[in-house]
């Protein structure tokens, strides 16, 4: 078992008028959800296509499960492209079985697994309907099922939540985490940063054909920490500033007096807390880590310079 299920090393891919990827390296840990982030046109889709062996890189290597990526590896990948599409005129069940067969499943096994998934998603009655008769959300579900049906070791979801209503998005999120628990490695490409915090273990941020940020989500967030804390005091207590911190804001809410404070960098958390607790009744204390959204925007803006 390798620590990293997928490694891309120094990938370069040029198109006629621009460089889509310029020396991009990522490491996707085994059995984790890996967020591939970046603004539109950064090169995410190109990278995904290279991993899928849809296009070949101009230079660089992709290692799949420890070996250099080879044609048969695509049977171990499930890919949900950003631009969804299935055969509109083909019946749903027939179509799913066809696509599963192309991924190497035999017909009987595909039918059996498909029935289970359709039951789970409560779409069994759509089996014999043509795809074009289904609502968009329904089509998305079908496409998701098709992606995971052959139980690939690596799953790639490109913007999986687009087009889902909140209820179904939640369902999908649960399924993705469930797949992770079953040991699948998942690459997850999105713009939706709140879902990144909930789902992803690691991320790589690509901008202008380069990886500008990579690592474990919590590590990345703490890299960007600003020494800001959220402090709750018993109602009625007043916090007075000292040399250890400054008060950024305060409000009274839900029986608490909440302060946002920024501590000086040379002070440890316990020093800070004990100095405050000496005079006040502390009800809560937590560090404010920047959201992925902020990190995303800041990094992208910075790398523009």
């Amino acid at each position: 078992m390798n620590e990293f299920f997928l490694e891309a090393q120094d990938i370069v891919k040029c198109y006629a008028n621009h460089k889509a990827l310029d020396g991009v390296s990522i490491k996707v840990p085994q059995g984790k959800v890996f967020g591939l982030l970046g603004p539109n046109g950064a090169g995410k889709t190109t990278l995904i296509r290279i991993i899928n062996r849809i296009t070949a890189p101009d230079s660089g290597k992709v290692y799949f499960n420890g070996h250099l990526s080879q044609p048969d590896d695509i049977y171990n990948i499930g890919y949900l492209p950003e631009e969804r599409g299935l055969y509109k005129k083909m019946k749903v069940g027939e179509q799913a079985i066809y696509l599963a067969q192309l991924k190497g499943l035999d017909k009987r096994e595909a039918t059996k697994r498909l029935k289970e998934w359709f039951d789970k998603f409560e779409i069994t009655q759509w089996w014999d309907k043509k795809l074009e008769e289904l609502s968009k959300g329904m089509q998305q579900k079908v496409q998701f099922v098709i992606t995971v049906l052959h139980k690939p070791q690596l799953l790639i979801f490109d913007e999986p939540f687009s087009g889902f209503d909140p209820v179904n998005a939640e369902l999908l999120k649960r399924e993705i985490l469930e797949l992770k628990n079953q040991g699948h490695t998942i690459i997850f490409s999105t713009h939706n940063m709140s879902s990144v915090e909930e789902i992803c273990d690691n991320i790589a941020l690509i901008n202008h054909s380069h990886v500008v940020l990579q690592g474990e989500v919590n590590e990345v967030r703490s890299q960007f920490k600003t020494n800001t804390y959220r402090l709750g005091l018993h109602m009625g207590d007043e916090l007075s500033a000292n040399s250890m911190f400054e008060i950024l804001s305060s409000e009274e809410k839900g029986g608490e007096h909440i302060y946002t404070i920024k501590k000086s960098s040379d002070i440890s958390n316990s020093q800070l807390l004990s100095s405050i607790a000496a005079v006040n009744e502390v009800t809560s204390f937590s560090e404010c880590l920047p959201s992925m959204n902020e990190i995303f925007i800041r990094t992208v803006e910075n790398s523009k310079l």
Partner: protein
Amino acid sequence: MNKTFIIIQREFMNRVSKKSFIILTVLMPFIFAALIFVPLMLSMVKSDEQKNIAVIDHTGKYFPMMANDESYLFFPEEEMKDEFRTDTTVYSAVIEITDDLIENPDAAAIYSRKEIPQGLSRIVNNAINEQIRHDKLISYNIPQLQRIMNDFDQTYSIRTIKWSDDGSESESNAGVAVAAGMILTFLIYMFVMSYGGMVMQSVMEEKTNRIVELMISSVRPFQLMIGKIIGIGLVGILQLAIWGVMLAVILTVAGLMFGVSAMSNPDIMMSATSAPMPEPTEANAILASINNLNLPALGGLFVLNFIGGYLVYASIFAAIGASINEAEDSQQFMTPIVFLLIFALYAAIYSAENADGPLAVWCSMIPFTSSIVSMVRVSLDAPLWQTTVSLVILYASAFTLIWLAGKIYRVGILMYGKKPSLKEMIKWISYK
């Protein structure tokens, strides 16, 4: 290879199980047969509805020339009556000739309340012309004129006998060979056009549907393309086979029903309706020459040319379908292809006139026209070496084109946005 088979299977089954395919396949031979038999039946029906034509011939010498036929009955009348102008009259037209037409050419006219049929004018003109010619000849006072004229009226048809390699002689009829060749040529043209178009349609559908990205994450683009080309080609072959069988059955049954003896073979039917109804001896001659056509060889070459021609054009159509984004853009690329096909069809028609002429020989070598032109030449016994070379070139080009199309296809199906120029498409071939 297994994947390609799955794709072939889907492309094939998906089309064959469509209602429109089944209906068209079943109905087409009937439509085809109807095209042959309806004119035949109509010509029989027509004889019940002969029209009466009044002829007021003051000279008295033109009327005898107007022979009754299945459409018109001519009746003499003494003079123009007012009732001819009303719709109670039994006559549908009135011909009035007031004077000798050699001296006074304006002295004849046809009157009718309706538009005068072309056929009637022609019959009357011919009759009058014949009489005028006759009158003029008489005015030269040639002795024994009547005997000379009778002698002139002989028609003659020369026997055509073909020497085969073993020195034996057989009755041949180029008309039958040409008819058979033209039918096969036209079939190839039709199928290449419609099934090639189907390949393009299908490639384009996958591209605009965006399913293609999902597909090529499972199979190689080339497998997808070749699977599609083969799958659709098999549909064409199946349809052709069904039509062949049905047509033979229908024509036999219909032939028996109409009591036309020589209708067991569709080819005969063609030549029988396209030419005027043959005399019994001529029909026998046609039968004889059909037996002399080398049907197994002709059939085999038809299948080879059919497949080769389809592969050449289907690969071009696949490359086009992969390169464009919208159906509207296809026009620009389609037009030259369609021109090429139509040129091939015309070349085939002219090759029938001169099967060994430079046009025929060259067009049967160029892969874009050869599959269509060859059939006419083959049916007219082109030299074996030419047929062989033509087929070798055809298949070599077909496989080269499939390979090139695969290269263009692979890049094109993932290119969205701007419509590519031909130059860009050629550049795609060299992409890694």
